[in-house]
């Protein structure tokens, strides 16, 4: 499973960077979205994947029997997903407003503040 995940993550990062390097601001945001998804999958994978063993302690026992999945990266990924969701919602509103003002879906037309 890990090699497939690694490939998928690599593909997500590569696609994301490619999209971010385009001139369109919509593609820029799609790139950001893919990038944060790639990062979430990466945390999930690097922490080790354990199938079919939820981190639950059976009744009466003091500790989980046998190997269980690590719950911490799952909590971390959940937090990261929520944060990415909020930030991307902001980014989408931002590009919409920017499009309304600049009237172009082109980063080359947004160079007024550069020097």
């Amino acid at each position, binding site marked *: 499973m890990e090699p497939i995940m690694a490939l998928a993550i690599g593909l997500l990062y590569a696609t994301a960077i490619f999209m*971010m390097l385009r001139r369109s*601001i919509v593609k*820029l945001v799609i790139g*950001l979205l893919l*990038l*944060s998804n*790639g*990062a979430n999958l*990466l*945390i999930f*994978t*690097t*922490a*080790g994947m354990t199938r079919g063993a939820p981190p639950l*302690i059976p009744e009466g026992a*003091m*500790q*989980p029997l046998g*190997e269980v999945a690590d719950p*911490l*990266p799952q909590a*971390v990924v959940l*937090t*990261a997903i929520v*944060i990415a969701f*909020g*930030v991307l919602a*902001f*980014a989408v509103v*931002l*590009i919409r*407003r*920017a499009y309304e*003002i*600049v009237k172009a879906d082109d*980063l080359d037309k*947004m*160079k*007024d*503040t*550069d*020097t």
Partner: protein
Amino acid sequence: MRPEVALPVLLPLLSGTISLLFWRSRPMQRFVAVAGNVALLVVSLWLFIAVLSDGYVTMQMGSWPAPFGITLIADMLSAVMILLTGIIGLAMGIYSLASTGRGHEKFGYYPLMHLLLAGVAGAFLTGDIFNLYVWFEVMLVASFALLILGGERAQMEGAIKYVTLNLLASVIFLTAVGLLYGTVGTLNMADIALRLDAAEHSGMVEVLAVMFMVAFGIKAAAFPLFFWLPASYHTPPVAVSALFAGLLTKVGVYSLFRVFTLMFDQTMGYLQDIMLWGAVFTMVTGVLGAAAQYEFRRILSFHIVSQIGYMILGLALYTPLAIAGGVFAIMHNIVVKTNLFLISGITHRLQGTYQLKKMGGLYRERPWLAVAFFISAFSLAGIPPLSGFFAKFVLVRAGLEAEAYVATGIALAVGLMTLYSMVKIWNEVFWKALPEDNHVPASQTPVGDDGRLLKPSLWMMYLPVIVLAMMSLLIGIFAEPIMYVMTLIGDQLMTPSNYIEAVLGASTSAEAALLEPVELSSELAGDSLEEAP
């Protein structure tokens, strides 16, 4: 249980919540903005005194023992940064009352300001690497919203660069955290430090160190990925610019200091040169960028970049003295840079523009404002006896001791270039006569950020400026006791074992933390099960 560590985070969150509850009541929001930030300053003083007497103040969230729960820890560096956050927060609270237009106030300016302060304070105090990421995001989201309040074209264009680069940095940071957890199996920074020290030297640690360096480097606006800063910092309302200039990039620098002195100290031999030259290029490109500008806030934005170079130089030299100098530079820069932005806001109010060519004659009209600018600007350039001189003096001495002659020489030359930019502003804004084609007669038609006329309640804008200018002067005059605190910080950062002991407790350090993570977590799970009914 030490409440003073948690309060600098909780208080701004509380003020922000109260502010949100009074969404429609502008006077109430303004009152909370000042009262909440006064409380924040008091609490940060409390924390500073506690840390000064005890060395480290820690608190485990939810009473979970150290490597499992989230730790809040204040060492001297955190305490100083929190104290500065309190000072700048209060200065901004007062300044915003006069400078922020009603349009901004109506759309949540004050709640966002409190949220930003909470994020900054959280980042300074947390002892958990993922929690640091969360506080970074809290800070970023608040700063995004503050940056585009008003919705002008320049703000949108600046915000797209700011948002993209900062999100990219966040993802790199998050990726590094994920890989780090996969490598060492813990998120507590002190615990990570222990395990990385115990781990045999592998290429993975260096890769992680570089990822953290890049992520925090972008957030600190270090070379080569600094260009989002000068593209965006001059666009929002001036109080927001000043708050960003004072605190945001410094959080990135703080994180660099924290991560590379605590967790990745063994990779410094490898990274030192990269960081040193990164610092040198940051200084040079920043100051050269400023030399080409003729807009007040753009010049100052480029100087933020240049000053970041000095701070990173302190870290890159990596001796206790250099670290002390770097932190001195951070402290001095927070006070002085914020003040310069505040002054640019007053001059904008007086003359209706940020373009240096269109301004003039303020020395004759507002001599005290000119004095405040003079102190801040020459402090930035490092003229004795002001605060900037001692920061630079310590850094240069550390550089010579470390035999980094080229970097030290460039640091001194950059100081000269800084002086050039500051003299340029002085000449154009204060010294020369007001040019004929400026249609805004001085001190007649003050204009708010939303372009409407405002009552000339300038004293609320002057008050923070004069206090901050006095602080810069006093830091210079009382450099000895401040240098004592800075030396303490340098020693603390260079002996991470004390920090680790403060977090994990003397008994659980070394041996216990090296136990297998699975065993430890199952023990803990057993304990908590026993307590449950």
